[in-house]
């Protein structure tokens, strides 16, 4: 039977930011299939020009509320590299801990509040308050505990306060380390229940192999904060050469730039990281990956959510390890820095260019700054994971639509929304991003 499908989802929900899905199938032929990014551009890169490099982190954290710590860390890495500052070992370890907490916080939000409603056949977590009260309470509790962890470490999760160029303006005291450990142990217990729940969820079937891109390194550590940029096709470049990876190009229908490396598109995020660094996962996380059937190369995009769950376990376990190290060695309070705009010249300056490449919840994030010898920003560039993923999302949509034409319009729409949501897209982040528009099918 020949079929026409016209889908036009305006303002896709349960994603961060604004986007539309547009699909047009005419007599079984796919004529149009795209993800329109309709977020108002915010021009962060333009606004940064002329500001002090010591303000860059504060400003760019405001690109995104969900991954504000990730932006903070990428920004700081780029800034420190531009002015030639090397952070202390303690600072680096604390930054890793902060990044774990944000990844955990974001993954929990996505798994429980944004994806689970689809898998349980409801429109949001609100109806679940009645049908799955314990689950909702657990989700909100875990979210709050991640938040409380960030409160202790950096003042708050949304737009962290004490994490700046040069280090931390306030360092955790011993009793705060204890409080963090206590929270992590409670999260660990809730995580076991989360894993049990996840085992009962069924993700849609879909396969499309693509290039998976993320940080890689030569150590045993599953890389989030530092490394080179690598892909499952065996390519690897230094972070300074990130433009060779992203190759951004502008398409008329979206305010998010598109990206491709060695294939027509690539994927960043939890699934990409798992495909690249599976062997380096914490044993408990690896055991869960095996239980969920996630063995590289995983090519079902919907399983990005399952990969997030695996990473959540990894983040909890590795945070506990990091905390134990801090408890053993103690935190050197003398390392606390008060910088402001570096009025006192606490941190020496030089002109230069620096790149930050950090794995944030949705994938690899790049910041690049050029500064003059007074520390004033001359040029800035930020490439957000969702921007890198949009092109891959469209390629996924083009493959899946012809495979599901036997379904109703509503079912197709839902599957497409779920597909896009699987990427956990952060549209306001891509500052330059999501709604589903079916035109004609």
């Amino acid at each position, binding site marked *: 039977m020949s079929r026409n499908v016209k889908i036009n989802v305006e*303002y896709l*929900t*349960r994603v*961060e*930011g604004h986007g539309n899905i547009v699909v047009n199938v005419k007599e079984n032929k796919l004529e149009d299939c795209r993800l329109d990014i309709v977020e*108002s*551009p*915010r*021009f962060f*890169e*333009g*606004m940064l*020009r*002329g500001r002090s490099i010591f*303000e860059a982190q*504060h*400003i760019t954290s*405001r690109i*995104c*509320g*969900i991954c*504000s710590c990730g932006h903070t860390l990428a920004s700081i890495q780029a800034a420190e590299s531009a002015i030639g500052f090397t952070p202390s070992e303690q600072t680096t370890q604390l930054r890793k801990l902060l990044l774990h907490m944000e990844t955990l916080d974001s993954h929990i939000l996505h798994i429980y509040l*944004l994806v689970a*409603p689809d898998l349980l056949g409801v*429109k*949001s*977590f*609100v109806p679940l*308050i009645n049908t799955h009260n314990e689950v*909702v*309470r657990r989700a*909100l*509790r875990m*979210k*709050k505990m991640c*938040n409380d962890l960030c409160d202790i470490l*950096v*003042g*708050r*999760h*949304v*737009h962290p*306060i*004490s994490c*700046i160029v040069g280090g*931390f*303006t*306030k360092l955790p005291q011993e009793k705060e380390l204890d409080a963090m450990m206590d929270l992590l142990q409670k999260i660990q217990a809730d995580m076991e229940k989360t894993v049990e729940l996840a085992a009962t969820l069924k993700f849609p079937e879909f396969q499309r192999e693509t290039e998976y891109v993320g940080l890689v390194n030569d150590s045993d550590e599953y890389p989030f904060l530092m490394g080179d940029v690598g892909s499952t096709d065996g390519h690897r470049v230094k972070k300074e050469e990130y433009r060779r990876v992203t190759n951004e190009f*502008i398409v*008329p229908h979206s*305010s998010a730039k598109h990206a491709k490396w060695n294939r027509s598109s690539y994927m960043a995020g939890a699934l990409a990281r798992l495909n690249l660094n599976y062997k380096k996962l914490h044993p408990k996380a690896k055991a869960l990956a095996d239980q969920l059937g996630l063995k590289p190369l995983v090519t079902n995009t919907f399983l990005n959510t399952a990969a997030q769950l695996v990473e959540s376990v990894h983040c909890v376990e590795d945070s506990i390890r990091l905390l134990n190290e801090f408890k053993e060695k103690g935190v050197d309070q003398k390392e606390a820095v*008060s*910088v*402001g*705009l570096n*009025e*006192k010249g606490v941190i020496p300056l030089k002109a230069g260019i620096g790149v930050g490449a950090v794995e944030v919840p949705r994938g690899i994030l790049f910041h690049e700054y050029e500064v003059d010898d007074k520390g004033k920003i001359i040029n800035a560039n930020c490439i957000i994971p969702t921007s890198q993923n949009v092109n891959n999302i469209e390629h996924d949509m083009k493959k899946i639509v012809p495979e599901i034409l036997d379904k109703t319009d509503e079912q197709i729409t839902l599957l497409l929304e779920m597909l896009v949501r699987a990427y956990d897209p952060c549209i*306001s*982040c891509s500052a*330059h991003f999501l709604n589903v528009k079916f035109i004609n099918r």
Partner: protein
Amino acid sequence: MKKTKVAFFDFSCCEGCQLQVANMGEALLDVLDLIEVVNFREVMSERSDDYDVAVVEGSITSPHGVERIKKIRSIAKVLIAYGSCATIGGVNGMKNNFELEDIRKYVYQDSAHHFHTIPTRAVHQVVPVDYFVHGCPVYIPEFVKVLKSALSGLPYRVPDDAVCTECKLNENVCMYEKGITCLGPITRAGCNSWCVNNGNICYGCRGMVTNPAQKGQKDILDRYQIPMEWIENKMNMYNKARENDLAEEKKNNEQKC
């Protein structure tokens, strides 16, 4: 009791203030006992054009945004501007430091013409606002106070003394004593000096007090030999869109004369 219908909307922003709601934890369920959330795109697929209270996050930065906020205002009985981007323009205001054409070309080069943008405006600079929740991000205890006021039809008075008053109570060492510039002396309190408590400076995210102690501030700057332009430059990070208010004030005064 019939629950009040509340809708959340976002304009140009990072959605971090909405996220602050999700960060309330299980306490959120108590709030949901009192209100019915009918729109919250970030976490819900349900939608409705029937609501009593609109909580609006973000600045108005596009012609489409102007139309959307006008429609929301025409439906909502009560409109709450939520977070710095909505209440004072916030970091989006920094765009107004540049010529629009220049900044569009810088970010989007030859494709700049695809991206429509207008100078950043706070929500009250486009439509009337009933309640203001300042902050980047909002401070949840204050939001809860405002929500209670809005639900019971009572006014909420935004603190109009300086952040320093709270900072002193929190026994922080003054940043100026450390030789570092801080916007605490001219910024509205209400955040419990959140940033200074954590060793950073005040960036002025809650907006300027209505009647800043200008002489006192000038004395501080003189004493610590801090050039005025440093302060102005810092103020421009969150408060650039304040110029729209000043222009409006000037226009009204001229009309009076």
